[in-house]
């Protein structure tokens, strides 16, 4: 089975902190994604990557950056956390069809 592992289930950070969300997949997938999930808004794509060191902006990249130094790992970085970034963050990986998701990280910025 494909496994996508996010490093934390719950995080609480202070406004202005730099925050790292880590995601690792074990199936040698080329594509990896970061989504943000908010009630009533569904899943919105923040960034995706289709290869090592490659990244593309999604629908809501402002305030975020990403890093993909190795194929199995895709990191989401909040450069200076703000309260409006309080949300559920979901990482996913895929080949060309369905995506496989991690358990999610619920981030609270206070």
């Amino acid at each position, binding site marked *: 089975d494909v496994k*996508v592992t996010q490093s934390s289930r719950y995080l609480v950070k202070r406004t202005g902190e730099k925050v790292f969300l880590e995601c690792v997949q074990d199936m040698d997938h080329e*594509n990896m*994604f970061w*989504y943000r999930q908010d009630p*009533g*808004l*569904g*899943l919105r*794509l923040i960034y*995706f990557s*289709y290869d090592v060191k490659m990244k*593309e902006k*999604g629908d809501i990249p402002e305030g975020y950056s990403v890093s993909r130094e190795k194929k199995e790992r895709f990191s989401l970085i909040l450069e200076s956390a703000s309260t409006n970034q309080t949300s559920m963050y*979901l990482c*996913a990986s*895929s080949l060309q*069809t*369905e*995506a*496989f*998701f*991690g*358990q*999610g990280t*619920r981030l609270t910025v206070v």
Partner: protein
Amino acid sequence: AQSVTQLDSQVPVFEEAPVELRCNYSSSVSVYLFWYVQYPNQGLQLLLKYLSGSTLVESINGFEAEFNKSQTSFHLRKPSVHISDTAEYFCAVRVVSGYSTLTFGKGTMLLVSP
């Protein structure tokens, strides 16, 4: 660009009743179609998918969905729901060729009561 519309944000239903969760999509090119399920405080799990071939696809737990190209729909159905089906359901599309991402609808919360 692709878009997905899930017409109902919440669907309340009694146990053992049938249910249909509606999904319509918009795309100028061929797409793959998916339904995902999310239980509380968990990630998304793939429920079923349409890639090609038969337009009726089924999951192992009794759900089915039918791809209707003319109506650009991919509605999810189950003839008899259980309490354990209570969850949020997301419809998603992905372009068949090239580098592409999954585009999701806003989700439908299925609430099954006894």
